[in-house]
Protein backbone atom coordinates (compact mmCIF):
# COMPACT_ATOMS: atom_id res chain seq x y z
CA UNK A 1 0.00 0.00 0.00
CA UNK A 2 1.46 3.38 -0.98
CA UNK A 3 -0.61 6.37 -0.04
CA UNK A 4 2.10 9.01 -0.67
CA UNK A 5 0.72 11.50 1.79
CA UNK A 6 2.43 14.83 2.30
CA UNK A 7 1.50 17.63 4.64
CA UNK A 8 0.37 20.97 3.25
CA UNK A 9 3.63 22.54 4.34
CA UNK A 10 5.60 19.96 2.42
CA UNK A 11 3.61 20.55 -0.71
CA UNK A 12 4.34 24.27 -0.42
CA UNK A 13 8.03 23.67 -0.06
CA UNK A 14 8.15 21.15 -2.89
CA UNK A 15 6.45 23.60 -5.21
CA UNK A 16 8.56 26.49 -4.09
CA UNK A 17 11.93 24.80 -4.17
CA UNK A 18 11.24 22.46 -7.00
CA UNK A 19 12.81 19.57 -5.12
CA UNK A 20 11.48 16.17 -4.30
CA UNK A 21 10.85 16.67 -0.59
CA UNK A 22 8.46 13.80 -0.35
CA UNK A 23 7.90 12.38 3.06
CA UNK A 24 5.68 9.34 2.87
CA UNK A 25 3.93 9.06 6.19
CA UNK A 26 4.91 5.69 7.55
CA UNK A 27 3.24 4.30 4.51
CA UNK A 28 5.32 1.23 4.04
CA UNK A 29 5.21 -1.78 6.26
CA UNK A 30 3.08 -3.00 9.13
CA UNK A 31 3.32 0.24 11.07
CA UNK A 32 0.82 1.85 8.76
CA UNK A 33 -1.86 -0.74 9.35
CA UNK A 34 -4.80 0.53 11.40
CA UNK A 35 -4.60 -0.57 15.00
CA UNK A 36 -7.62 -2.69 15.83
CA UNK A 37 -9.28 -3.13 19.18
CA UNK A 38 -7.03 -6.11 19.88
CA UNK A 39 -3.90 -4.01 19.48
CA UNK A 40 -5.35 -1.37 21.82
CA UNK A 41 -6.31 -4.03 24.34
CA UNK A 42 -2.93 -5.75 24.27
CA UNK A 43 -1.13 -2.41 24.66
CA UNK A 44 -3.22 -1.41 27.67
CA UNK A 45 -2.76 -4.82 29.31
CA UNK A 46 1.03 -4.72 28.78
CA UNK A 47 1.29 -1.21 30.24
CA UNK A 48 -0.81 -2.23 33.26
CA UNK A 49 1.36 -5.31 33.73
CA UNK A 50 4.46 -3.13 33.69
CA UNK A 51 2.96 -0.78 36.29
CA UNK A 52 2.02 -3.73 38.52
CA UNK A 53 5.46 -5.33 38.20
CA UNK A 54 7.19 -2.08 39.08
CA UNK A 55 4.88 -1.32 41.99
CA UNK A 56 4.91 -4.72 43.64
CA UNK A 57 8.09 -6.35 42.28
CA UNK A 58 10.29 -3.96 44.32
CA UNK A 59 12.94 -3.45 41.64
CA UNK A 60 14.60 -0.90 43.95
CA UNK A 61 16.03 -3.87 45.83
CA UNK A 62 18.68 -3.96 43.15
CA UNK A 63 21.01 -1.02 43.68
CA UNK A 64 22.06 -0.84 40.03
CA UNK A 65 18.45 -0.79 38.87
CA UNK A 66 17.61 1.94 41.35
CA UNK A 67 20.63 3.91 40.10
CA UNK A 68 19.44 3.46 36.51
CA UNK A 69 15.90 4.62 37.20
CA UNK A 70 17.04 7.69 39.16
CA UNK A 71 19.38 8.85 36.36
CA UNK A 72 16.82 7.94 33.68
CA UNK A 73 14.09 9.94 35.40
CA UNK A 74 16.35 12.90 36.09
CA UNK A 75 17.52 13.34 32.49
CA UNK A 76 13.98 12.94 31.17
CA UNK A 77 12.46 15.42 33.61
CA UNK A 78 15.14 17.91 32.69
CA UNK A 79 15.01 17.33 28.93
CA UNK A 80 11.28 16.94 28.21
CA UNK A 81 10.31 20.56 28.97
CA UNK A 82 13.00 21.67 26.53
CA UNK A 83 11.69 19.27 23.88
CA UNK A 84 8.27 20.80 24.39
CA UNK A 85 9.64 24.35 24.20
CA UNK A 86 11.38 23.31 20.97
CA UNK A 87 8.09 21.87 19.73
CA UNK A 88 6.29 25.14 20.48
CA UNK A 89 8.97 27.12 18.61
CA UNK A 90 8.73 24.62 15.77
CA UNK A 91 4.92 25.00 15.64
CA UNK A 92 5.24 28.79 15.60
CA UNK A 93 7.59 28.50 12.61
CA UNK A 94 5.19 26.14 10.85
CA UNK A 95 1.96 28.01 11.45
CA UNK A 96 2.77 31.67 11.95
CA UNK A 97 5.96 32.39 9.97
CA UNK A 98 5.20 33.03 6.30
CA UNK A 99 7.09 31.02 3.71
CA UNK A 100 8.48 34.27 2.28
CA UNK A 101 10.69 34.63 5.36
CA UNK A 102 12.54 31.45 4.44
CA UNK A 103 12.74 32.46 0.82
CA UNK A 104 14.53 35.65 1.86
CA UNK A 105 17.06 33.64 3.90
CA UNK A 106 17.45 31.25 0.99
CA UNK A 107 18.40 34.13 -1.28
CA UNK A 108 21.41 35.01 0.89
CA UNK A 109 24.73 33.81 -0.53
CA UNK A 110 25.83 30.51 1.06
CA UNK A 111 28.93 32.14 2.46
CA UNK A 112 26.64 34.36 4.59
CA UNK A 113 23.86 31.86 5.25
CA UNK A 114 25.86 29.52 7.46
CA UNK A 115 27.51 32.10 9.76
CA UNK A 116 24.15 33.89 10.05
CA UNK A 117 22.43 30.61 10.96
CA UNK A 118 25.08 29.94 13.62
CA UNK A 119 24.75 33.47 14.96
CA UNK A 120 20.96 33.04 15.13
CA UNK A 121 21.62 30.36 17.74
CA UNK A 122 22.83 33.09 20.11
CA UNK A 123 19.30 34.43 20.35
CA UNK A 124 17.74 31.04 20.98
CA UNK A 125 18.12 29.98 24.62
CA UNK A 126 17.37 26.28 24.23
CA UNK A 127 19.50 23.22 24.70
CA UNK A 128 20.18 20.53 22.13
CA UNK A 129 16.91 18.65 22.75
CA UNK A 130 14.91 21.70 21.69
CA UNK A 131 17.01 22.65 18.69
CA UNK A 132 16.42 19.37 16.82
CA UNK A 133 12.65 19.83 16.29
CA UNK A 134 13.22 23.45 15.33
CA UNK A 135 15.84 22.52 12.72
CA UNK A 136 13.61 19.76 11.40
CA UNK A 137 10.76 22.20 10.97
CA UNK A 138 13.03 24.76 9.31
CA UNK A 139 14.10 22.07 6.85
CA UNK A 140 10.52 21.13 6.11
CA UNK A 141 9.66 24.77 5.54
CA UNK A 142 12.32 24.84 2.85
CA UNK A 143 15.33 26.37 4.58
CA UNK A 144 18.60 25.19 3.03
CA UNK A 145 19.79 22.02 4.82
CA UNK A 146 23.19 23.55 5.56
CA UNK A 147 21.68 26.55 7.32
CA UNK A 148 19.17 24.48 9.31
CA UNK A 149 21.85 22.07 10.50
CA UNK A 150 24.27 24.88 11.35
CA UNK A 151 21.57 26.48 13.48
CA UNK A 152 20.77 23.16 15.15
CA UNK A 153 24.39 22.54 16.15
CA UNK A 154 25.25 26.11 17.09
CA UNK A 155 22.23 27.02 19.22
CA UNK A 156 22.99 24.64 22.13
CA UNK A 157 26.54 26.01 22.45
CA UNK A 158 26.23 29.68 21.56
CA UNK A 159 23.05 30.58 23.42
CA UNK A 160 23.24 33.03 26.34
CA UNK A 161 22.33 30.50 29.04
CA UNK A 162 25.17 28.19 28.03
CA UNK A 163 27.61 31.08 27.79
CA UNK A 164 26.64 32.15 31.30
CA UNK A 165 26.92 28.65 32.77
CA UNK A 166 30.34 28.13 31.21
CA UNK A 167 31.57 31.47 32.52
CA UNK A 168 30.34 30.63 36.03
CA UNK A 169 31.83 27.11 35.98
CA UNK A 170 35.28 28.33 34.95
CA UNK A 171 35.29 31.64 36.78
CA UNK A 172 38.59 32.26 38.54
CA UNK A 173 40.45 29.43 36.86
CA UNK A 174 43.69 29.92 34.97
CA UNK A 175 42.25 28.22 31.89
CA UNK A 176 39.12 30.41 31.91
CA UNK A 177 39.69 32.18 28.60
CA UNK A 178 41.00 29.08 26.82
CA UNK A 179 37.91 27.07 27.69
CA UNK A 180 35.25 29.77 27.45
CA UNK A 181 36.42 31.43 24.24
CA UNK A 182 37.57 28.08 22.84
CA UNK A 183 34.15 26.54 23.38
CA UNK A 184 32.29 29.20 21.48
CA UNK A 185 34.86 29.65 18.75
CA UNK A 186 35.30 25.94 18.10
CA UNK A 187 31.55 25.35 18.44
CA UNK A 188 30.90 28.04 15.85
CA UNK A 189 33.51 26.59 13.47
CA UNK A 190 32.22 23.02 13.82
CA UNK A 191 28.58 24.09 13.30
CA UNK A 192 29.45 26.02 10.14
CA UNK A 193 31.70 23.23 8.85
CA UNK A 194 29.06 20.53 9.33
CA UNK A 195 26.49 22.85 7.73
CA UNK A 196 28.82 23.31 4.78
CA UNK A 197 29.23 19.52 4.38
CA UNK A 198 25.47 18.95 4.69
CA UNK A 199 24.73 21.93 2.43
CA UNK A 200 25.69 19.95 -0.64
CA UNK A 201 22.75 17.60 -0.05
CA UNK A 202 19.15 17.95 -1.12
CA UNK A 203 16.50 18.24 1.64
CA UNK A 204 15.14 14.80 0.77
CA UNK A 205 18.60 13.33 1.32
CA UNK A 206 18.76 14.85 4.78
CA UNK A 207 15.37 14.06 6.34
CA UNK A 208 14.62 10.43 7.04
CA UNK A 209 12.12 8.86 4.74
CA UNK A 210 9.08 7.10 6.14
CA UNK A 211 8.54 9.49 9.01
CA UNK A 212 5.96 12.15 9.46
CA UNK A 213 4.49 13.93 12.44
CA UNK A 214 1.63 11.88 13.86
CA UNK A 215 -0.59 14.93 13.47
CA UNK A 216 0.72 16.36 10.25
CA UNK A 217 -1.36 14.27 7.92
CA UNK A 218 -4.84 14.86 9.29
CA UNK A 219 -5.18 18.61 8.98
CA UNK A 220 -7.93 19.80 6.71
CA UNK A 221 -7.27 23.03 4.77
CA UNK A 222 -10.12 24.86 6.51
CA UNK A 223 -8.85 24.06 9.99
CA UNK A 224 -8.09 26.97 12.29
CA UNK A 225 -4.52 28.13 12.86
CA UNK A 226 -4.74 27.33 16.57
CA UNK A 227 -5.87 23.80 15.87
CA UNK A 228 -2.92 23.30 13.51
CA UNK A 229 -0.66 24.93 16.10
CA UNK A 230 -1.81 22.47 18.80
CA UNK A 231 -1.40 19.61 16.33
CA UNK A 232 2.17 20.48 15.45
CA UNK A 233 3.17 20.85 19.10
CA UNK A 234 1.73 17.42 19.90
CA UNK A 235 3.24 15.92 16.74
CA UNK A 236 6.74 17.22 17.39
CA UNK A 237 6.61 16.27 21.07
CA UNK A 238 5.60 12.70 20.30
CA UNK A 239 7.98 12.37 17.38
CA UNK A 240 11.02 13.67 19.28
CA UNK A 241 10.00 12.35 22.67
CA UNK A 242 10.08 8.68 21.72
CA UNK A 243 13.64 8.93 20.40
CA UNK A 244 14.66 10.89 23.45
CA UNK A 245 13.30 8.14 25.71
CA UNK A 246 15.44 5.54 23.93
CA UNK A 247 18.54 7.74 23.99
CA UNK A 248 18.14 8.60 27.66
CA UNK A 249 17.63 4.93 28.57
CA UNK A 250 20.92 4.03 26.89
CA UNK A 251 22.74 6.98 28.50
CA UNK A 252 21.39 6.06 31.95
CA UNK A 253 22.39 2.42 31.46
CA UNK A 254 25.94 3.38 30.52
CA UNK A 255 26.18 5.83 33.41
CA UNK A 256 25.13 2.98 35.68
CA UNK A 257 27.48 0.36 34.24
CA UNK A 258 30.67 2.32 33.54
CA UNK A 259 32.28 4.15 36.47
CA UNK A 260 33.27 7.67 35.42
CA UNK A 261 36.34 7.39 37.61
CA UNK A 262 37.80 4.94 35.06
CA UNK A 263 38.48 7.75 32.61
CA UNK A 264 40.87 9.48 35.00
CA UNK A 265 43.49 6.83 34.22
CA UNK A 266 44.16 8.27 30.75
CA UNK A 267 44.28 11.89 31.84
CA UNK A 268 48.01 12.24 31.23
CA UNK A 269 48.01 10.89 27.68
CA UNK A 270 47.85 13.82 25.23
CA UNK A 271 45.74 12.52 22.33
CA UNK A 272 43.93 9.73 24.15
CA UNK A 273 42.76 12.08 26.90
CA UNK A 274 40.98 14.23 24.31
CA UNK A 275 39.42 11.21 22.61
CA UNK A 276 38.28 9.82 25.96
CA UNK A 277 36.70 13.11 27.00
CA UNK A 278 34.88 13.27 23.67
CA UNK A 279 33.65 9.72 24.23
CA UNK A 280 32.60 10.60 27.76
CA UNK A 281 30.59 13.60 26.53
CA UNK A 282 28.92 11.30 24.01
CA UNK A 283 28.04 8.74 26.65
CA UNK A 284 26.93 11.03 29.48
CA UNK A 285 24.43 12.95 27.30
CA UNK A 286 24.35 15.94 29.61
CA UNK A 287 22.36 19.07 28.93
CA UNK A 288 24.53 21.77 27.38
CA UNK A 289 23.34 24.15 30.04
CA UNK A 290 24.96 22.10 32.80
CA UNK A 291 27.85 20.26 31.20
CA UNK A 292 30.41 22.99 31.97
CA UNK A 293 30.19 22.19 35.67
CA UNK A 294 30.87 18.54 35.02
CA UNK A 295 33.73 19.32 32.64
CA UNK A 296 35.25 21.59 35.26
CA UNK A 297 35.32 18.72 37.74
CA UNK A 298 37.65 16.69 35.51
CA UNK A 299 40.72 18.60 36.61
CA UNK A 300 43.04 15.69 35.91
CA UNK A 301 42.49 16.59 32.26
CA UNK A 302 44.02 19.63 30.60
CA UNK A 303 41.99 22.50 29.12
CA UNK A 304 42.12 20.97 25.62
CA UNK A 305 40.46 17.73 26.76
CA UNK A 306 37.85 19.68 28.73
CA UNK A 307 37.25 21.80 25.64
CA UNK A 308 36.70 18.63 23.61
CA UNK A 309 34.09 17.52 26.17
CA UNK A 310 32.31 20.88 26.05
CA UNK A 311 32.07 21.08 22.26
CA UNK A 312 31.25 17.41 21.63
CA UNK A 313 28.38 16.98 24.11
CA UNK A 314 25.94 19.57 22.72
CA UNK A 315 26.47 18.30 19.17
CA UNK A 316 26.82 14.54 19.38
CA UNK A 317 25.76 12.35 22.26
CA UNK A 318 23.69 9.21 22.77
CA UNK A 319 20.31 10.89 23.23
CA UNK A 320 21.00 13.21 20.30
CA UNK A 321 22.06 10.28 18.14
CA UNK A 322 18.69 8.68 18.81
CA UNK A 323 16.97 11.96 17.88
CA UNK A 324 19.11 12.37 14.76
CA UNK A 325 18.55 8.76 13.74
CA UNK A 326 14.80 9.20 14.02
CA UNK A 327 14.76 12.54 12.22
CA UNK A 328 17.46 12.42 9.60
CA UNK A 329 18.84 9.98 7.06
CA UNK A 330 21.63 7.52 7.89
CA UNK A 331 24.04 9.49 5.77
CA UNK A 332 23.26 12.61 7.78
CA UNK A 333 24.09 10.98 11.10
CA UNK A 334 27.35 9.64 9.66
CA UNK A 335 28.28 13.03 8.19
CA UNK A 336 27.62 14.86 11.47
CA UNK A 337 29.49 12.30 13.56
CA UNK A 338 32.54 12.17 11.29
CA UNK A 339 32.79 15.87 10.43
CA UNK A 340 32.17 17.13 13.95
CA UNK A 341 34.51 14.56 15.55
CA UNK A 342 37.37 15.27 13.16
CA UNK A 343 37.15 19.06 13.53
CA UNK A 344 36.75 18.90 17.31
CA UNK A 345 39.73 16.57 17.56
CA UNK A 346 41.86 18.73 15.27
CA UNK A 347 40.82 21.94 17.02
CA UNK A 348 41.46 20.64 20.51
CA UNK A 349 44.79 19.05 19.53
CA UNK A 350 45.79 22.44 18.23
CA UNK A 351 44.68 23.94 21.56
CA UNK A 352 46.65 21.27 23.41
CA UNK A 353 49.83 22.17 21.54
CA UNK A 354 49.43 25.84 22.46
CA UNK A 355 47.92 25.69 25.95
CA UNK A 356 48.69 22.17 27.14
Amino acid sequence: MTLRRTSNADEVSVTRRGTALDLPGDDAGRGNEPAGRTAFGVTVVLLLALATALRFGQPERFAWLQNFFVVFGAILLEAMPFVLIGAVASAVIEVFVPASAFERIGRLPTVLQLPCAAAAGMAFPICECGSVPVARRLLRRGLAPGAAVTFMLAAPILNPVVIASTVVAYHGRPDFWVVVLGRFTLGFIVAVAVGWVIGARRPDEVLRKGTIDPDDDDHSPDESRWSRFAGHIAGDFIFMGRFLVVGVAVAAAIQTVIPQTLVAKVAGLPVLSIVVMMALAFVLSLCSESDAFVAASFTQFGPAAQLAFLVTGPMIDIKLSALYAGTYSKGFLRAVLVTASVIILAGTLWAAVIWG
Partner: protein
Amino acid sequence: MTWNLRRLLAGAVLAAWAALFWFVLLSGRTGLYLSTRTAWLVPAGAAILTVAALGRLASGRSGAPPPVRRSDLRGASLLVIPVIVLLALPASTLGTFALGRRPVFGVGATAPSGGLSSGTLSMVDVARAQATKEDLAALQHRNAETVVMVGFVATQPGEPSTEFMLSRFIITCCVADATETQVRVVDVPAGSARPNAWVQVTGRIYALGSQVIIDMTSMKPIPRPADPYLTG
Protein backbone atom coordinates in the same frame (compact mmCIF):
# COMPACT_ATOMS: atom_id res chain seq x y z
CA MET B 1 -17.06 16.47 12.58
CA THR B 2 -16.26 13.35 14.59
CA TRP B 3 -13.75 12.50 17.28
CA ASN B 4 -10.31 11.96 15.81
CA LEU B 5 -8.76 9.08 17.76
CA ARG B 6 -5.21 9.92 16.68
CA ARG B 7 -5.57 13.40 18.11
CA LEU B 8 -7.08 12.03 21.30
CA LEU B 9 -4.19 9.57 21.60
CA ALA B 10 -1.68 12.42 21.21
CA GLY B 11 -3.63 14.45 23.76
CA ALA B 12 -3.63 11.48 26.16
CA VAL B 13 0.17 11.13 25.88
CA LEU B 14 0.63 14.83 26.60
CA ALA B 15 -1.83 14.56 29.50
CA ALA B 16 0.11 11.58 30.91
CA TRP B 17 3.34 13.60 30.87
CA ALA B 18 1.54 16.59 32.39
CA ALA B 19 0.26 14.29 35.14
CA LEU B 20 3.81 13.05 35.80
CA PHE B 21 5.15 16.59 36.14
CA TRP B 22 2.25 17.57 38.45
CA PHE B 23 2.85 14.40 40.51
CA VAL B 24 6.56 15.16 40.89
CA LEU B 25 5.75 18.74 41.86
CA LEU B 26 2.94 18.03 44.30
CA SER B 27 4.56 14.99 45.94
CA GLY B 28 7.72 16.97 46.65
CA ARG B 29 9.88 14.69 44.53
CA THR B 30 11.51 17.45 42.48
CA GLY B 31 14.57 17.35 44.72
CA LEU B 32 15.05 13.65 43.99
CA TYR B 33 15.88 14.44 40.36
CA LEU B 34 16.74 18.10 39.86
CA SER B 35 18.83 20.70 41.64
CA THR B 36 17.37 23.85 43.16
CA ARG B 37 18.77 25.65 40.12
CA THR B 38 16.64 23.66 37.66
CA ALA B 39 13.65 22.88 39.90
CA TRP B 40 11.64 25.52 37.99
CA LEU B 41 11.48 23.08 35.07
CA VAL B 42 8.95 20.92 36.90
CA PRO B 43 6.22 23.54 37.40
CA ALA B 44 7.03 25.03 34.00
CA GLY B 45 6.86 21.60 32.36
CA ALA B 46 3.62 20.78 34.18
CA ALA B 47 2.00 24.03 33.03
CA ILE B 48 3.15 23.86 29.40
CA LEU B 49 2.29 20.17 29.06
CA THR B 50 -1.16 20.79 30.54
CA VAL B 51 -1.84 23.60 28.08
CA ALA B 52 -0.52 21.48 25.19
CA ALA B 53 -2.67 18.51 26.24
CA LEU B 54 -5.78 20.66 26.58
CA GLY B 55 -5.06 22.28 23.24
CA ARG B 56 -4.79 18.92 21.51
CA LEU B 57 -7.85 17.49 23.22
CA ALA B 58 -9.87 20.64 22.49
CA SER B 59 -9.11 20.25 18.79
CA GLY B 60 -9.85 16.56 18.91
CA ARG B 61 -12.69 16.62 16.38
CA SER B 62 -12.15 16.69 12.66
CA GLY B 63 -13.79 15.72 9.44
CA ALA B 64 -12.95 12.23 8.08
CA PRO B 65 -10.29 11.41 10.66
CA PRO B 66 -7.63 8.87 9.68
CA PRO B 67 -7.50 5.67 11.74
CA VAL B 68 -4.99 5.13 14.53
CA ARG B 69 -2.06 3.21 13.06
CA ARG B 70 0.00 0.59 14.82
CA SER B 71 3.01 2.89 14.63
CA ASP B 72 1.00 5.58 16.46
CA LEU B 73 0.21 3.09 19.17
CA ARG B 74 3.84 1.98 19.46
CA GLY B 75 5.10 5.57 19.65
CA ALA B 76 2.50 6.49 22.28
CA SER B 77 3.33 3.39 24.34
CA LEU B 78 7.04 4.16 24.27
CA LEU B 79 6.34 7.63 25.58
CA VAL B 80 3.98 6.43 28.28
CA ILE B 81 6.40 3.82 29.66
CA PRO B 82 8.66 6.37 31.44
CA VAL B 83 5.56 7.96 32.97
CA ILE B 84 4.48 4.60 34.35
CA VAL B 85 7.99 3.85 35.61
CA LEU B 86 8.35 7.15 37.46
CA LEU B 87 4.82 7.02 38.89
CA ALA B 88 4.99 3.38 39.98
CA LEU B 89 8.41 3.29 41.57
CA PRO B 90 8.87 4.46 45.15
CA ALA B 91 10.95 7.60 45.66
CA SER B 92 14.64 6.72 45.60
CA THR B 93 18.00 8.43 45.30
CA LEU B 94 21.57 7.67 44.37
CA GLY B 95 23.18 5.69 47.16
CA THR B 96 26.31 3.78 48.02
CA PHE B 97 26.21 1.97 44.65
CA ALA B 98 26.98 5.25 42.88
CA LEU B 99 29.82 6.21 45.25
CA GLY B 100 33.19 5.64 43.61
CA ARG B 101 31.54 5.51 40.21
CA ARG B 102 31.10 9.28 40.03
CA PRO B 103 33.72 12.02 40.00
CA VAL B 104 34.64 13.67 43.26
CA PHE B 105 33.26 17.19 43.60
CA GLY B 106 35.46 19.74 41.80
CA VAL B 107 38.87 18.74 43.08
CA GLY B 108 40.86 21.78 42.05
CA ALA B 109 38.03 22.84 39.79
CA THR B 110 36.29 25.47 41.80
CA ALA B 111 37.44 28.93 42.69
CA PRO B 112 38.06 29.41 46.43
CA SER B 113 34.73 30.23 48.03
CA GLY B 114 36.26 32.54 50.61
CA GLY B 115 33.27 31.77 52.80
CA LEU B 116 34.73 29.15 55.10
CA SER B 117 36.27 31.52 57.63
CA SER B 118 32.94 32.06 59.40
CA GLY B 119 29.37 30.79 59.47
CA THR B 120 27.90 27.32 59.78
CA LEU B 121 29.93 24.60 58.05
CA SER B 122 28.17 22.22 55.65
CA MET B 123 29.08 19.26 53.47
CA VAL B 124 29.50 21.66 50.55
CA ASP B 125 32.13 23.52 52.60
CA VAL B 126 33.89 20.23 53.24
CA ALA B 127 33.80 19.52 49.51
CA ARG B 128 35.25 22.94 48.75
CA ALA B 129 37.97 22.47 51.35
CA GLN B 130 38.96 19.23 49.64
CA ALA B 131 38.92 21.06 46.28
CA THR B 132 41.05 24.16 46.87
CA LYS B 133 44.07 24.86 49.05
CA GLU B 134 42.69 28.24 50.13
CA ASP B 135 39.47 26.74 51.44
CA LEU B 136 41.35 23.90 53.10
CA ALA B 137 43.51 26.46 54.90
CA ALA B 138 40.38 28.35 55.96
CA LEU B 139 38.83 25.15 57.29
CA GLN B 140 42.02 24.26 59.18
CA HIS B 141 41.65 27.50 61.11
CA ARG B 142 38.37 26.13 62.40
CA ASN B 143 39.70 22.77 63.55
CA ALA B 144 37.96 21.37 66.64
CA GLU B 145 34.80 23.42 66.05
CA THR B 146 31.57 21.56 66.65
CA VAL B 147 29.58 20.88 63.48
CA VAL B 148 26.29 19.21 62.63
CA MET B 149 26.17 17.47 59.26
CA VAL B 150 23.66 15.35 57.41
CA GLY B 151 24.43 12.59 54.93
CA PHE B 152 24.14 8.90 54.30
CA VAL B 153 26.41 6.20 55.64
CA ALA B 154 28.95 4.50 53.39
CA THR B 155 31.33 1.88 54.66
CA GLN B 156 34.34 0.44 52.91
CA PRO B 157 35.75 -3.08 53.11
CA GLY B 158 38.56 -3.33 55.65
CA GLU B 159 37.52 -0.13 57.38
CA PRO B 160 37.38 -0.17 61.21
CA SER B 161 33.85 -0.69 62.49
CA THR B 162 34.19 2.55 64.46
CA GLU B 163 34.44 4.66 61.30
CA PHE B 164 32.34 5.40 58.24
CA MET B 165 32.18 7.90 55.41
CA LEU B 166 29.37 10.46 55.70
CA SER B 167 28.44 10.98 52.05
CA ARG B 168 26.42 13.35 49.89
CA PHE B 169 26.05 13.95 46.18
CA ILE B 170 26.32 17.46 44.79
CA ILE B 171 24.40 18.24 41.63
CA THR B 172 24.40 21.21 39.32
CA CYS B 173 21.36 20.60 37.11
CA CYS B 174 20.17 17.03 37.59
CA VAL B 175 21.28 13.72 39.05
CA ALA B 176 23.08 12.84 35.82
CA ASP B 177 25.81 15.35 36.68
CA ALA B 178 26.17 14.28 40.32
CA THR B 179 29.58 14.45 41.95
CA GLU B 180 30.33 13.03 45.37
CA THR B 181 31.70 14.44 48.59
CA GLN B 182 32.58 12.52 51.73
CA VAL B 183 33.84 13.20 55.22
CA ARG B 184 35.25 10.49 57.47
CA VAL B 185 33.43 10.08 60.78
CA VAL B 186 35.43 8.49 63.60
CA ASP B 187 34.69 7.32 67.15
CA VAL B 188 31.45 5.72 66.06
CA PRO B 189 30.02 3.00 68.35
CA ALA B 190 30.66 -0.27 66.52
CA GLY B 191 27.72 -1.47 64.47
CA SER B 192 25.64 1.67 64.93
CA ALA B 193 26.01 2.92 61.34
CA ARG B 194 23.99 1.05 58.73
CA PRO B 195 25.08 1.52 55.10
CA ASN B 196 22.81 3.82 53.05
CA ALA B 197 21.01 5.06 56.20
CA TRP B 198 20.58 8.81 56.54
CA VAL B 199 22.06 10.23 59.73
CA GLN B 200 22.71 13.53 61.43
CA VAL B 201 26.20 13.59 62.92
CA THR B 202 27.38 16.01 65.57
CA GLY B 203 31.07 16.23 66.35
CA ARG B 204 34.30 18.17 66.12
CA ILE B 205 35.69 18.78 62.67
CA TYR B 206 39.37 18.50 61.78
CA ALA B 207 41.02 19.19 58.44
CA LEU B 208 44.14 17.03 58.49
CA GLY B 209 46.23 17.32 55.37
CA SER B 210 43.81 16.82 52.52
CA GLN B 211 41.41 14.74 54.59
CA VAL B 212 38.57 16.08 56.67
CA ILE B 213 37.27 14.07 59.61
CA ILE B 214 34.56 14.47 62.19
CA ASP B 215 35.22 13.18 65.67
CA MET B 216 31.69 12.14 66.49
CA THR B 217 30.01 13.06 69.75
CA SER B 218 26.48 12.04 68.78
CA MET B 219 24.58 10.58 65.86
CA LYS B 220 20.89 10.13 65.20
CA PRO B 221 19.09 8.45 62.32
CA ILE B 222 16.90 10.76 60.28
CA PRO B 223 14.52 10.31 57.36
CA ARG B 224 15.88 11.10 53.93
CA PRO B 225 15.83 14.90 53.46
CA ALA B 226 13.42 16.42 50.94
CA ASP B 227 16.47 17.67 49.05
CA PRO B 228 18.88 14.74 49.32
CA TYR B 229 21.32 16.32 46.86
CA LEU B 230 23.28 19.46 47.55
CA THR B 231 23.52 22.12 44.89
CA GLY B 232 27.10 23.00 44.03
